[in-house]
């Protein structure tokens, strides 16, 4: 599904270039954008190109500069240096109302003194769209987010999920070139969030809009995006498709933030893989084996003992302390094992075996990244 979405994104860009035989212009572009707040550098030289119709995510921990990037694209903040381009046009100095983008705010920012319909019609009314046209488009937008019988309600009378939909309809009704979403699902509970993820993705594909989606939830970014950028401390660590970022992280920060860290330092790597560079291996690629099993030539192995067993329903997570130093997280589907069986392994001596090709070498620079943070994100 991820690759399918990716292909459709590229396809949309290609269609566009056929109608305009010139070089394809990115829908949204950031050119060495910096943003300082006093002494604090929120965004530190970001370059980015987002294609037309693409679902692009900015993923990162809080304070990584992702929201500031979004706010600069929307026009709420002016970059300290660098340029913001929309369809190739420099909009860095333009006010929000002069940009063909709309935003879905984290707190929805629905106007409390207006009904649902008034909220949705606001953008059209402001742009002096004739009344009957306005009504039709608002009805269509509300239908798209499946909120047809709520016209006269006030935002205060709606549930969180419904407010979210109104916010979406209010932005979509303006038919912007680009839709910016700032952690739009952050305030919803897990179940609703998963539903809305699917719905958002469907809406995006149907209307063919460029979405720029800010989130700190790696699972959300992986499941929804065509491409994503992982941000850390105001810089972009890696840009790529979800599969790229997940399977071939270029830094230990990305490895840790997107999924479980499982980064082994250069010294340990030398002993296990025979190569003195630190690498990461995804927990689901590793299998637990008896300590006397002989690995195949193409496989890596490490002895250790199980320090922690976390039963998560569909799978179980094992934290294994390696004898040569460091620790690895192993994920195992609960194909036949019950929780009792899974938990019994705790404290036992085991051997970890995985195929060498799953080793992804990363730079050592940010090895201090907090592992628990990464795994905590995954649990959501």
């Amino acid at each position: 599904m991820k690759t399918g979405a990716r292909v459709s994104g590229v396809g949309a860009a290609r269609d566009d270039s056929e109608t305009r035989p010139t070089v394809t212009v990115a829908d949204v572009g950031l050119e060495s954008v910096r943003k300082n707040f006093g002494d604090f550098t929120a965004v530190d030289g970001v370059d980015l190109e987002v294609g037309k119709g693409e679902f692009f995510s900015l993923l990162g921990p809080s304070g990584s500069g992702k929201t500031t990037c979004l706010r600069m694209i929307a026009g709420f903040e002016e970059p300290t240096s660098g340029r913001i381009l929309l369809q190739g046009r420099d909009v860095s100095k333009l006010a929000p109302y002069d940009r063909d983008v709309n935003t879905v705010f984290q707190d929805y920012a629905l106007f409390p003194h207006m009904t649902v319909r008034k909220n949705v019609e606001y953008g059209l009314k402001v742009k002096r769209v004739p009344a009957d046209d306005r009504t039709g488009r608002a009805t269509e937008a509300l239908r798209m987010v499946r909120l047809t019988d709520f016209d006269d309600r006030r935002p205060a009378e709606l549930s969180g999920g419904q407010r979210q939909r109104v916010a979406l309809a209010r932005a979509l009704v303006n038919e912007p070139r680009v839709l910016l979403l700032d952690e739009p699902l952050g305030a919803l509970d897990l179940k609703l969030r998963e539903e809305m993820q699917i719905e958002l993705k469907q809406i995006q594909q149907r209307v063919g809009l460029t979405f720029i989606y800010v989130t700190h939830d790696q699972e959300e970014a992986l499941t929804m995006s065509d491409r994503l950028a992982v941000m850390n401390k105001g810089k972009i660590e890696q840009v790529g498709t979800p599969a790229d970022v997940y399977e071939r992280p270029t830094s230990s920060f990305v490895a840790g933030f997107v999924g479980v860290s499982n980064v082994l330092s250069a010294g340990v790597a030398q002993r296990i893989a025979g190569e003195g560079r630190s690498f990461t291996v995804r927990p689901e690629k590793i299998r637990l084996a008896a300590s006397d099993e002989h690995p195949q030539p193409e496989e890596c192995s490490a002895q250790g003992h199980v320090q922690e067993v976390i039963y998560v329903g569909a799978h179980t997570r094992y934290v294994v302390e390696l004898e040569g130093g460091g620790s690895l997280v192993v994920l195992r589907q609960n194909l036949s094992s019950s929780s009792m069986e899974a938990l019994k392994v705790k404290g036992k001596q085991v051997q970890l075996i995985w195929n060498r090709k799953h080793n992804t070498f990363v730079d050592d620079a940010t090895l201090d990244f907090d592992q628990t943070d990464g795994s905590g994100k995954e649990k959501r």
Partner: protein
Amino acid sequence: MTEMATATATQPKALHRASAWLHRRPKLRLGMLLGPPMAWMLVVYLGALTLLFLTGFWSQNVLTAEVQRTWGLENYQEILSSAAYRTIALRTLGIAFAVMTTDIILALPVAYFAARVARPTTRVLLLLSITLPLWSSYLVRVYAWRVILSGTGLLNWTLGKLQLGALDIEYSNWSVWIVFSYLWLPFVALPIYTALERVPTSYIEASADLGAKWWLTFRRVVLPIAFPGIVAGAMFAFALTLGDYIVPILAGNTLFIGNVIYQSVGVANNVPFAAAYAVVPAVIMGVYLIGARKLGAFEAL
């Protein structure tokens, strides 16, 4: 658990039992908390208001000037039928509205700037300069305005320098209006500042994001949301003007409701008539409050 046990052990047993007993009776606790202040309000405010209303039905002996405690409608009849008293009431009402409107117009931009535009230091300075006049005596400020507005005062001096002629507004309703507007401005500006400050920034950003320029955002989003607070602030200017009698004496040349009451009590010793006339602003204020409630002013408090 053990901590709690030691804590309660040190407390006297009876006290502990009493507090446990009270804990199970939230209504009684509320009653004990609100009872005394509510009783105070009831006796002092509503009691006094009732007495005022009732006193209005008494009369004054024409010869001895003593209060006669016999019931009659003469005072109220006189107020309703006399053109002079009607004019005074309408004049007071008109000036109160004028002052209220002026203060809203003056306070809105300043309050908006302080709440939404200014940096923290500027904001503090601005709020300080709004409230600073309150630290000096009311009389000093009124006399200061008398100096400014007098025939040879600062106003006419400035106008003369600008070759704009001169204004003869000393001791007039114009000067009463100006002085009142100045005096009550802090009371209007502060609630409006609070109301504007409470409008979430994201609403304003959302409005701009949806294509509205500053003025449209202000008119369609900021103003409606801050409106109850603005009405609440305006109430101060209205109520304070309605009850004041010093400014008309010092800066004006006409009578206001307050002056009539003051003269009835202090000069003529006709307390019953003063009481009856005091019902007029009370009624006006009642009507105003009902209107303000309709506009949602109390939801903002």
